[in-house]
């Protein structure tokens, strides 16, 4: 119990830190947001009105304070006067979409990476291992901004199976999932291979084999759970990153998630929305981190013991 409370306290502290940092950075961005919002042909009176509406004459601390006050009142609005968006409504729409995309991408990545990584570890330097390594290098090297359009050309245009962009139906999830999942799968396959290879060399595996256990049992009940520990850490980190809005992928596929929301907020210099997005990212990251910790406890008896 104590531990959970501590965790929550540190989560809140981290969120406060993120908020202060992003506020300071927004303040450091050179140039006058009024120019960016109103354009060069605006009248001085309108510029002044906007400057006051944005509290630009106040210090960065006062502005951050106003943001916190509005956020706590749960009626946080876009900071630019003509945009009357309720910030939390927008995030409540976008975050679940991004969460679904993150989970499908992770599921896709694991589906590809687990068999590939295991097969590669079982026959190191074999043909499957070479394939897995090649795939891993390729996956890490190909940028999403390139692989995304390539998948569109193949599956949406040549084969005409899937929509190009948007999320009009669940089919719109497929290509972004593949784009995000491929790079992740490549990375995870390498991790799984390396970790499993290490574990397979451990004494307890040799013991299990010596006891005459069937090879499948040795692999899946003895070696694999142990090999999973470092992989779990990486999966947790990656999931956190995916929840932080895969900005490039969401832009390419016009996916209406957190990445698109953030991009639009930056375009419009909607500081409240940017701050709220960053807070949402921080919280999702920390929540995933918390879950990873709990999963660790479930999987690793040593961690349980220590607590």
């Amino acid at each position, binding site marked *: 119990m104590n531990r959970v409370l501590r965790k929550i306290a540190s989560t809140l502290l981290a969120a406060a830190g993120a908020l202060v940092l992003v506020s300071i950075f927004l303040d450091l961005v050179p140039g006058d947001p009024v120019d960016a919002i109103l354009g060069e042909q605006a009248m001085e009176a309108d510029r002044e009105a906007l400057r006051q509406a944005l509290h630009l004459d106040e210090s960065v601390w006062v502005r951050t304070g106003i943001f916190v006050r509005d956020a706590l009142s749960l009626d946080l609005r876009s900071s630019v006067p*003509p945009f009357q968006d309720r910030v939390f409504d927008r995030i409540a*729409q976008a975050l679940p979409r991004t969460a679904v995309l993150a989970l499908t991408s992770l599921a896709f990545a694991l589906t590809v990476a687990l068999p590939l990584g295991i097969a590669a570890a079982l026959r190191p330097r074999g043909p499957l291992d070479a394939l897995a390594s090649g795939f891993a290098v390729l996956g890490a090297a190909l940028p999403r901004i390139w692989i995304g359009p390539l998948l569109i050309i193949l599956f949406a245009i040549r084969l005409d199976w899937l929509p190009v962009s948007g999320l009009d139906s669940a089919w719109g999830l497929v290509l972004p999932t593949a784009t995000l999942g491929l790079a992740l799968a490549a990375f995870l396959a390498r991790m799984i291979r390396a970790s499993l290879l290490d574990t397979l060399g451990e004494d307890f595996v040799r013991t299990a084999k010596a006891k005459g256990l069937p090879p499948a049992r040795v692999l899946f009940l003895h070696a694999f759970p142990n090999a999973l520990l470092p992989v779990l850490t990486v999966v947790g980190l990656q999931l956190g990153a995916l929840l932080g809005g895969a900005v490039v992928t969401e832009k*390419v596929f016009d996916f209406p998630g957190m990445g698109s929301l953030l991009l639009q907020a930056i375009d419009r210099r909607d500081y409240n929305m940017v701050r709220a997005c960053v807070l949402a990212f921080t919280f999702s990251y920390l929540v995933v981190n918390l879950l990873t910790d709990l999963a660790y406890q479930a999987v690793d008896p040593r961690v349980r013991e220590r607590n």
Partner: protein
Amino acid sequence: MLAVSCSREGGEDRLTVAIESTPETLDRRMALSQNAQRVAQLVTPGLTRIDEDGRAVADLALAFEAVDDRTWIFQLRPGLFFSDGSPLRAKDVRATFLSVLDPALGSPHRGGYAYIEAVEAPDERTVVFRLREPFGAFPVDAGLGVLPARLTDPSRRDEVRLRPIGAGPYVVESWDGEGEIRLAPNERYHLGPPREALTIRTVRDETTRLLELRKGRVQVLLGSVTPALLPGLRSLDHLEVTVAPGAGVSYLMFNFDDPILSRREVREAIALAVDREALAAHKFKGAARVAHSLLREGHWAHAPDLPIWKRDVQAARARLAEVLPDGGPLRLTLKTSTDRFRRSIALALKAQLAEAGIELSIQSLEWGTLMGDLKKGNFQLATLKWTPVIDPDILRLAYHSASIPTAENGWGGGNRGRYRNPELDRILMEARHRSDPEERRALYARAQHIVAKDLPALPLLHEESIGVIARGLEGIRVDPQGSLRSLVQARRAE
């Protein structure tokens, strides 16, 4: 950029238009972005609209005139109706304009309309605007989208944002402020309802927009297609590429507070060293025209017989020799944005000026830093773009000495080159105060001549708009101001 496609759904014909960013509102009193304005114009037109030559012409108005230099009278067309069936009357126009001036609405255009002293509606079809000061470009500003009086109250702002009611060709069917905007034909539109319903979708990524076009869900792109894509697009059989005048003009700006650049010979040498034809042909793949003024040829106020700065490297060297008797190279710094395309143009300028013995060093700066430096006068040369150029009053913003950014005017104003010419100031103010278009044209012609001679900035190119239209769709045109009006006429060829 914008893309259109046709599909049949529910038995009706529907065009799907893709734009690169979601409008923030469909309320033209509040709209800031070009996309918001261009979509909202389809629903709520105003008394006037901007014609292809940049002139304000009657739209909902039948006719308008200035009865004296501060009073404009607009006559409404007979039989106008809002899409909800209520008649459009002078009092609706009055209420719309007064609401913009109401601080409670919080319109970002309130200051822009502050010169309006009173709006009167003496009868159902007459609107009288009384201005605090003479303003010849008022018909341009009179294009504000007219709303029914009952919707103009600030308390209904959120409602108008998503679902304005107007007398335009389309009516908002559904929009949640974020996703696609569905527009249905307005059966009461005074010129007859359009044939097709319209869906407006946001597709942020240019590559994706083009792929949607290839897929056939998108059939037309209107507006900012990158010129670099032109050769590739031209090679596609099922698409027709149209290049038409745009409303943006790029320019090379000189800082008059710089001791070297304040000398006419140096500015002339640079103007003579730049090869703008080459930039248009190679950087813009032909989708640009050499500019001799901020106003493009074909604009109603464009002065026809302006002096032309054509490339002449020998003459440029001769001019430089007058300033630098020792013949040493002239070293200057050019500031531009980090945009890759703008940077590549700056590099081309560097190569061109080098041939005339001018050494440029290029600094590409993040947009905010660049604008900050330019406003404070912390530069020698810079490239920028004016967009959109609609009324010639933009010359005042660009070259009037009162438009020099200073701490007093909150660093606003577009005369960042700090050019001062009392004669030009006088002409520009006089032109602003005249309401007769012929008098304005004559004054602006004089102003353009002074500017072309004095070179406070060298206009580079009028950058054109590119339209990509699927074969089989007719009636859609690329508009210099980015207007979508021609979609109303879209029809499929048999």
